[in-house]
Structures are given as C-alpha cells and as structure tokens.
C-alpha cells in the first residue's frame, strides 16, 4: 500500500530529478564544465523534505527549517553542510541517471562518423548520450555490426565510456598501431611516447599480464588509460590518478607504479589453494596541455580533466559484468589528489573509497565532500616529502588532507629519503609512495582491497 506522504516524497524526488535532467543541455553548452549548484541544492531539498515527511507521516518543521536554511544560500560553507548531510543520496541518484556527467567530447565525433556509415540495425545515440545510453546501444548491436564498427577506423571510438573495456582495447590498439606507423598525424614527441606505450603493452603480454588500452589521447603531451587485467570482470578495481607530471612519455614509470600496487595486492591476497579475488589496476593519465607548474598546482586546468575522469569512473561501473559490483577505489598521487577533490566537487565520483598519497592539499574543506560514507577517504604523507609538507602548511591549496579537521583516515608511511635540508625534506621522498618494498604501498594495497590500513601515528608538523 502506498502511503500518501510517500507519494508526495516520490513526486518531490521526481521533480528534482527533472531539474537535473533539464540542466543537461546547459552543461553541454558550458565550455568550462557545468555548475550544478542549483540542481544539487534542489535535489538536496527534495530529498530532505521526502525524508522528513515520507517515512513517519509527520512533518518535522525544525528539520525542514534547517534544510531550507542550508539550501537557500550558495556560500561554500553552506554547500559543504548540504553535502555532508545529503551527498551520498545525491550521488546515488545522479549516478543512476548518468546525469552528473559532462558529455563526452569525443562521442560527438564518433557518433557523427558512425551515422555517416549508415549503421543498418541501430543508429548511435545523440551527442548528449549518457554512458548508460551508449552501453545499451552497443549491447543491442549484432555481432556483425560490432565488428564492422570496431574495424571501421573511428579513431576515438576506443575512448568512449560505456563501451566494454575489451572493445575499447581493440579499437585503441588499432589506433595506436596506425599512429606508431605514421599513418595518422601526431607530433614527434607524442609519437616517441607512443612507441614507448606500445613497448609496455608488448612487454606486459610477454610477462603474462593482461593489459588493456582503455583510452588514448594524442593532443598536448598525450595521455593513456591502461588497465592491468580487465576491470569489467574483476572483483576489485583501483583506479590510479597520478600527479601533475602526467604525460604520455612517463607512461612506463606510472605503469610500473600501477604494477607495484597490483603486485602488493596479490601478495596480500595469496591464499594457497583457494581462489583469491581478482584485481584490475587502471592507470588514468590525463591531458595537462601546456603544463605550467604553478597553474597545475592552482588547478586551473582541472575543468578539462574532472568531467572525463568522472565519466571514466562511472563507465567502469556501467560496463562491469559480474553479478556483484566491483570494489572501486580511486588511488591518487600528488596533484591527482587535488583533481580527485575537484572531480567530487564539480561532479561526483562513483567509487567506494578514495586513497590519496602525497597530496599537496585539497580544494575541498573536508573529507565528507568526496561524497563517500564516513571513514572511506584516506590520506598518507611521507614525513620527508617536501611537496606534501608544503601542502600541510596550506601553501599550495587551502586544506591539508592529513590534518584532523579534514576528517580523512591517515595511514602510516615510511619516513622516506632525507636530504641535508632543515627537517630532511626532499623532493625524492615525494616519489616513494609506490616503491615496491614500502609501507605506503602496503597500506594503499590494503585500502584498495577494502581493508583497513595501519594508521599513522600522530606527529607534529616539522618546522624549518
């Protein structure tokens, strides 16, 4: 039996969902990503009203007043309050709608190309297609049509979130082969890096590792998204977002870090005869364009990164094929941690946990703004890491992730390489979080496995 107040609550939620859907065109028209503050607040208000009137049949005026006060203003602190109370529900709804995601700029080119090919059995969805719509479209195609499309030479098809990872890999490898062979134009610098990427993929195969090329970008410094093992069929999927030095020519080093994480997870999983859970580690490089360090640190390039990152995370949820959802953890290093916060703030991050390493700070005010349940945001800092230390002092971004007021769970790390500087701070220590024999890696692997890491002991901030 439907309770009258429950119907009102449902209508309220539906209204808020409608507002979100209506704003999709507005998102699409905004070059710098979309500002969803208004939709977020409407939804928060609707959810709150539904909550206070729906279940008990009575109205808690004080609760409504509280929510109205919070939602009515758009200041940062009020927004944080709204997020703290409602973000999990908001993200769940937004993820279900696919509505939190900015349109895929590549999809427009791909869908246009596919339309020109006059697909017989099913035309592709339009420019504003959600990840779900793209996935459903692909799912409905005949095997012949799929092969026709894969081999059709649409160069960006492999980057489209919502397509199965195996399909993306096939498309991107064809694209990579053409780029390396010089059949498609690309800068000399990026071509050199592409050769390195091809070598990494070949060596992985020789070493018995399944590697998947999930995305490939060739503008700017170039970027690749590569997975060891297939995230669509794995039980756990840590997604590694590296630091601001992210560019294709560093792909071998960042893939080595991803392998280190995967190996440590396997060392902790080993169980003799029993079959352990399957793990896939995804390295997500992103385009940094003409990277100027200060600009990178200030996050001014972020708008072109957060939307696609959000879409990738959501796409991995949509294309996962196991009956149980995979356990997805966003593992970030350095500036990747800042980007993770920006992504959560501007969109939503469809993961179970976030684990940051060596973060130079965050644009968020507190861990709850990642939109995850309490205790699912982790932060680690190597004592001698000079960049993380500067972040802790608030020199780079407004908040340090390992200060108690931020509210992250702080995990233990090793001291790191010390240089003969006051406090022993070194640049070298900033790059030791993923060292194969390190406590930081051990703890990151535990977090990626859904276990609790060893907590850091409280320590004072070293003073110069």
């Amino acid at each position, binding site marked *: 039996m439907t309770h009258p107040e429950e119907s009102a609550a449902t209508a309220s939620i539906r209204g808020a969902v409608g507002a979100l859907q209506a704003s999709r065109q507005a998102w699409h028209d905004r070059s710098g990503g979309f500002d969803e503050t208004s939709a977020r607040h409407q939804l928060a208000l609707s959810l709150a009203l539904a909550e206070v009137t729906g279940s008990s049949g009575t109205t808690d005026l004080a609760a409504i007043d509280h929510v109205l006060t919070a939602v009515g203003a758009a200041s940062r602190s009020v927004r944080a309050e709204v997020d703290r109370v409602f973000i999990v529900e908001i993200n769940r709804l937004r993820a279900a709608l696919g509505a939190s995601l900015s349109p895929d700029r590549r999809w427009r080119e791909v869908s246009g190309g596919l339309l020109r090919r006059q697909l017989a059995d099913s035309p592709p969805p339009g420019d504003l297609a959600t990840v779900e719509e793209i996935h459903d479209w692909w799912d409905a195609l005949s095997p012949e049509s799929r092969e026709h499309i894969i081999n059709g030479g649409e160069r960006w098809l492999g980057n489209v979130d919502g397509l199965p990872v195996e399909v993306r890999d096939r498309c991107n490898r064809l694209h990579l082969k053409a780029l390396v062979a010089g059949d498609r134009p690309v800068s000399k610098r990026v071509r050199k890096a592409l050769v390195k990427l091809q070598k990494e993929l070949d060596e992985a195969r020789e070493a018995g590792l399944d590697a998947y090329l999930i995305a490939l970008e060739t503008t700017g410094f170039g970027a690749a998204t590569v997975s060891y093992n297939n995230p669509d069929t794995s039980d756990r999927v840590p997604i590694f977002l590296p630091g601001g030095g992210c560019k294709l020519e560093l792909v071998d080093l960042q893939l080595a870090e991803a392998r280190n994480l995967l190996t440590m997870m396997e060392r902790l999983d080993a169980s003799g005869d029993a079959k352990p859970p399957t793990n896939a580690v995804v390295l997500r490089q992103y385009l940094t364009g003409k990277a100027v360090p200060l600009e990178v640190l200030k996050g001014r390039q972020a708008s072109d990164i957060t939307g696609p990152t959000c879409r990738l995370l959501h796409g991995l949820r949509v294309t996962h094929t196991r009956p149980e959802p995979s356990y997805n953890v966003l593992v970030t290093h350095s500036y990747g941690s800042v980007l993770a916060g920006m992504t959560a703030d501007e969109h939503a991050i469809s993961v179970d946990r976030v684990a940051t390493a060596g973060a130079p700070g965050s644009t968020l005010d507190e861990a709850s703004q990642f939109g995850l349940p309490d205790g699912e945001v982790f932060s680690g800092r190597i004592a001698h890491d000079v960049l993380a230390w500067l972040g802790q002092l608030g020199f780079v971004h407004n908040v340090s992730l390992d200060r108690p007021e931020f509210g992250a769970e702080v995990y233990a790390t090793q001291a790191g390489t010390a240089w003969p500087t006051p406090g022993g701070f070194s640049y070298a220590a900033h790059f030791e979080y993923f060292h*194969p*024999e390190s406590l930081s890696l051990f703890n990151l692997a535990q977090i990626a496995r859904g276990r609790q890491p060893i907590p850091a002991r409280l320590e004072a901030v070293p003073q110069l």
Partner: protein
Amino acid sequence: MTDSPRATVGAAIARLEGYLSAAVAVLPVPCSLRRFRAEQRRSPDPETGDYGAHVELTRGYWLDGIGPDHVAACFEAIHDHWIDAGFVVVSDARPDGWFLSVANPADLYRMSLVASDAGTLSISATSSRVLPDDLAPEGSAPTA
C-alpha cells in the same frame, strides 16, 4: 637513491638474488621459492629528476610450504638476519600487520617481507639505480 656509478644490471641481479637467498636460508621451516616478479624499469635521478639510462630492478618470490602457524617465527628469523647483515629497519608493521621493510645503507637496496591474510609469505627485493650492462663506464668492474 644513487648507487656506485659503476653498478650494472648483471651485478645487481646477482646481488638481489644473493640477498634473497641469504634471507630464505635462515627460515626455521623448509620452503620452496616460486618467483612472482622479475622486472626492471627506468629510474630517474632523485636529485635532478632527469631520466637517464639508469634502471632499478625488483625480484620477488613466494615462500611456498610455510604454514600460517610459522609466520611469526619466520618474520622474527628474517628480521634478525637482516639486522645482523647490516640492514636497517625502514618499517615494521607488527603487530598491526605482517609487513617488514629494510634498507641496506651501503648500497641502498631495499627488501620487504609480507604475509597474506591466509598466512602465505612472500619476499621481495629492489635494487638502487644501476646502469644497463652495455652502458657501464669503460674499464669499470661490474660491481653493484
């Protein structure tokens, strides 16, 4: 972490395998080694960040045949061996976790011992920065 400029890959592999064999030799229960990792990767200069020809190497083995009841004794035996051999403890997570990491101040090689949730032991070692054999300075001895 820089090693001797004369260090080479060939010598580094020999040193890694030597460190690993020596550690396994002190275990209180017999086991067989099964490799899970053997790789080398580029290693940037930690002071300049430049990527030259230097690489670092990792070797890792499962220690098969050791039951979960012997995990604590194995950790203790290898810990004591590493201290006696001149390594320094970088991280010892016991009793909160089965993780032990050491470094050798003489050559900056690092090693770790891990037990899985089910009590399966694994040991790993990583070299410092070394040169590929064909790039070793002329006349240098291949020492790590």
